[in-house]
């Protein structure tokens, strides 16, 4: 459905995309992942026919985006990152204009279609509002609505959930999921759980290069699982004992206060947790230590892979630091995770392309 072959894009001397090739099948939801400045937006702009690549071919539904841009534009719906709408128009008026540009010439047909997309984007109640008076969340939905007007075979969404509040994020995700099936969707994001939740396949881009292209399960196979343990015990002895429980790849002591020691353990992902936990409890009983807390973090395995791919691509062997840093902050909210992943990118020492990585 969507195919990129050896795409490169240069801005002056800066190589934004370097020989990128991939293919997205019909009906797939494909996530573009990568740090800021990795080339996600550039790639999307090339696919939508907004700009030509410096080299290579991009085809959508069999049409070359450069040679046959009109055919591609007719089949595609695009939501740019900044949602640039005509703010002096009312919602329904704006959608009517876009529908007419997209080739819906009959007034009745247009009215029906506009009502349709307003309903699926949940903006019917705002149709008389001037776009400049809308909140970011509503603008985003208007942007999505305009992308849907031509019943596109392919939807390209650049950071569709950026700047939305948590409730809106949930809504827009379910909206995107509902759109899948008959449409092919490409969306970019740096919120990993979002990609994990919505997408069937992930392309990870870094510094203009494709560093991975696989299904979620393919990408996360062989990852480690993190467990946090808080015990009242002698630290040094416990450290050794814990390592002997089996399956522990590495561990870190996070803090120690009033005899309570806090460990982070990284276990093999395929380890039987129930068994391991039993073993741990036995050991604690034996030594008559006191287990305060045992937390098996809801694993975000994609993050681990992402950080590994991005950092190794950047700095090679030095990245171990970055990885561990990230291990400490992994968990909780989506926002935290995305910033954590950026942090670790910035932490990567000696990044030769440091300027591209700034958040």
């Amino acid at each position, binding site marked *: 459905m969507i195919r990129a072959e050896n795409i490169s*894009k240069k*801005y002056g001397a800066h190589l934004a995309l370097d020989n990128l090739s991939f293919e997205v099948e019909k009906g797939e939801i494909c996530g573009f992942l990568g740090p800021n400045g990795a080339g996600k937006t*550039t790639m999307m*702009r090339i696919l*939508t*026919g*907004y*700009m*030509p690549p410096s080299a290579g071919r991009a085809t959508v539904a069999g049409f070359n985006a450069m040679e046959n841009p*009109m055919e591609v*534009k*007719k089949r*595609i719906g*695009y939501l*740019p990152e*900044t949602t*640039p*709408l*005509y*703010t*002096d*128009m009312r919602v329904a008026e704006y959608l009517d*204009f*876009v529908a*007419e*540009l*997209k*080739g819906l*010439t009959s007034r009745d047909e247009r009215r029906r279609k506009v009502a349709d997309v307003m309903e699926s984007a949940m903006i019917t109640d705002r149709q008389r509002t001037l776009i400049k008076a809308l909140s970011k969340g509503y603008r985003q939905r208007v942007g999505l609505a*305009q992308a849907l007007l*031509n019943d596109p075979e392919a939807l390209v969404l650049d950071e569709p959930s950026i700047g939305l509040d948590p409730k809106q994020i949930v809504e827009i995700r379910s909206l995107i999921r509902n759109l899948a099936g008959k449409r092919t969707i490409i969306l970019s994001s740096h919120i990993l759980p979002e990609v994990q939740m919505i997408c069937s396949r992930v392309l990870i881009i870094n510094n203009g290069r494709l560093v991975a292209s696989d299904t979620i399960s393919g990408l996360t196979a062989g990852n480690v699982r993190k467990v946090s343990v808080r015990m009242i015990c002698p630290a040094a002895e416990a450290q050794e004992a814990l390592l002997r429980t089996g399956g522990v790849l590495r561990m870190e002591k996070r803090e120690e206060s009033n005899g309570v020691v806090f460990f982070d353990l990284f276990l093999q992902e395929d380890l039987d947790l129930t068994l391991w936990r039993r073993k741990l409890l036995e050991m604690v009983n034996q030594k008559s230590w006191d287990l305060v807390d045992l937390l098996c973090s809801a694993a975000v395995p994609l993050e681990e892979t992402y950080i590994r791919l991005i950092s190794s691509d950047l700095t090679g062997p030095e990245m171990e630091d970055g990885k561990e840093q990230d291990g400490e902050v992994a968990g909780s909210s989506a926002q935290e995770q995305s910033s954590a992943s950026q942090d670790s990118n910035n932490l990567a020492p000696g990044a030769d392309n440091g300027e591209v990585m700034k958040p």
Partner: protein
Amino acid sequence: MRTVYTMVKRELRAYFHSSIAYAIIFMFLFISGYFFFAGMNAYGLASFEMSKMAQRVGPRELTIAGFVVAPLLGNMSVVLLMMAPLLTMRLFSEEKKNGSIELLFTWPVTDFQMVMGKYLASLAVVAIMLGLTLPYVGFIWLHTTPPWSHILSGYMGLFMLAASFLSLGLFFSTLTENQIVSAVLSFGALLIFWVMGWTAGGNTDWLSELIKYFSILEHFQNPSRGVLDTRDVVYYFSFIVFFLFLSLRALEAEKIGG
């Protein structure tokens, strides 16, 4: 064609939803109305003087065409020179500034349709503006027979002149995302085209003739005197086509350069 029409509608709506079109049309009508009033006044005064003088020195030529219409056309052309960049400055600059050009480029609209849509919309505003000055002609008609052919050729000349201004302005708005820069560049360029004939003065060597040929002002002399010459029409037409073509190239360069 349909797409161009859709573009024109949206651009016109943008002109009239904001106060730009109203402000420009109001100032244009106010100033040209003043010139018309002043011309008519002077004509009335001169006719009165002449009627006394004619007994002694014999009749002099005193026409409404020479006294009112020609100066009015000349003055309106200068006001247009100042207003045109203000009309065109937003056309592409605004879209570049707020990023909406990205969406525009991904809708099924060709660059040509985009340029034509925006150009024709600005031309429509000028047509409305010039149309609103037609009551002046009616006013002349109340008192005497207007010099129809002079007025017709004058208005056609004025319209072509404005169309040229707008095409140049459109081109400069494709170059920058700053509306003020766009307006200043267009105004400066138009002024250069306006005054470049002056350097040639009355010389008749080939260089002076060439410079005079490129001057916009030179080509407005005939229409404002009531003469419609195909040479002038060809000049304006090529001027417009040239700058619309440059606009297209600029849009293309914009896409390639990102």
